[in-house]
């Protein structure tokens, strides 16, 4: 059963974000940072290792306004698990309610192919892709800030803006061959 964006009614002044990551460590820190940073809006964070989500929680689960896929470039498993999870998401989400969060892109040891592959996926789905740092506290703080900004728009809390509009503006562009050469 895939997750649907509009099957539930929204609540007043509430934004719900779902973080999907196959390791749980960064997810936990990010969720704490998100909850701590936001005071004006009631933000709920739901954590998941992968999609589909367990059916038994479906009743109590609120409407999810934004799905964030966290990809660690250090591990191939993280990329594979994200790609598998994407299949279980309703197509309605790709109209401005999905974003990718990539960590470890600065490390010189990770292969560029992984980054290119996730960029290609994000570009083909018209989704934004955020590069973040997961090792430092400031990095997590910044990541939380950026996720919150997108979340508020996609939850409809910012007047005159919609998720679809924002993600058209900030969506990831298809990596070109010249990117490859620059990396080498």
């Amino acid at each position: 059963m895939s997750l649907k964006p509009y099957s539930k009614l929204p609540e007043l002044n509430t934004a719900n974000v779902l973080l999907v990551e196959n390791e749980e460590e960064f997810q936990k820190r990010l969720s704490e940072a998100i909850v701590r940073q936001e005071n004006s809006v009631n933000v709920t964070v739901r954590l998941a290792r992968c999609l589909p989500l367990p059916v038994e929680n479906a009743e109590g689960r609120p409407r999810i306004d934004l799905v964030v896929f966290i990809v660690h470039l250090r591990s191939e498993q993280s990329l594979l698990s994200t790609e598998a999870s994407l299949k279980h998401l309703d197509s309605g989400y790709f109209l401005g309610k999905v974003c990718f969060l990539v960590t470890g892109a600065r490390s010189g040891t990770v292969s560029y192919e992984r980054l290119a592959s996730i960029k290609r996926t994000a570009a083909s789905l018209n989704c934004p892709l955020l590069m973040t740092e997961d090792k430092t506290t400031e990095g997590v703080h910044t990541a939380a800030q950026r996720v919150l900004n997108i979340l508020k728009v996609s939850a409809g809390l910012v007047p005159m803006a919609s998720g679809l509009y924002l993600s058209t503006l900030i969506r990831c562009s298809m990596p070109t061959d010249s990117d490859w050469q620059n990396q080498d």
Partner: protein
Amino acid sequence: MDDSVKQLLRQIIRKIPSSKLESTLTKWDHLSKRQFRSLDFTQPKWLFCENLLSLCEENDLTVKQVTELDMLYHIEHPNQGTWYACQLVDAEEETLSSELVHFRESFKKHLKYLISHIAVKTKKNDDGSIWIRIAWGDNFTRPNHLKPSYVVHHLQTPYVFVSGLTAKYKTLLHQALVLSTRYRSITDVHLSGRCLSALRDLLMRQYKQVFPTKYPRPLQERNPLPSTPNIENEHMKHTENRLQMAAEVFGDGALPKLETAVYKLETKYRDNGNEMLSGREEPFRGEVRFTSSNLLESLKSCVSSGIACAPVTPLLSSITQKGRNYFVITDKGPGISRPPGPKI
């Protein structure tokens, strides 16, 4: 005191870090109170060593007394060099437990019978273990005190821990151990590491273990996950299961400190894409080595954080269950086969 004794004392002092000199020398107890007070531990080591040498010369200490210092230091700080674990098997008479005095005498007697030029020193530690320091010599040379072997045996248990032993003297030591205890043979249990107490805890199961239960309630209470009501985990049950499984396999709390686990592969190469290698008759030999400052803790966190998929493979779980960290994997066996260890 002749020159070789002086040389030995210098060597021993050189090995002991300056910060631990005072405590070790206090225990040594071969200097008078006045002599001990005259020592200045803030001096540079070479100068301190010369002063100590002159005091020892006054007392006219023998090799035996000097080696006692080395032994004291090793007992206090056992985590140096690599320790190997051996197990005595086939007890002869269960009712007769070996006594300390008897064991000490008969071990010395048997070892001296096997090889004449050796120096053996034994000491009983506070925790009930016997420490044996053996300096080996050839038929024509005197015992070499600079490279001694240490043997630790807990009476009433079949386990023996050895460090600094060369292959040349291995059989001799094993034979002497078998003869002086009430067992028929001794085998290598393929467990080694730098931390002696960790090996002991692992073999004697003296760490906090977790057993499978139907209602794993206590685990939920110390579950670190939910902190605020705004964060909710969709896979809570899954996470709990993983934590429980990790604790069942590797234990709970502080785990014994192992440094390495080695898997020797002697299996056929299996890959359909590669005809060259998979078609070969002889096994594809390889070695997989896991290294960490605390291996069991690392493996446990791999399982509990979900990096390694659960359930844990028997290859990893047998480190704790069988108490080994060296495995040979062959095709025929049920997974893990035990290579024929040196038996007497």
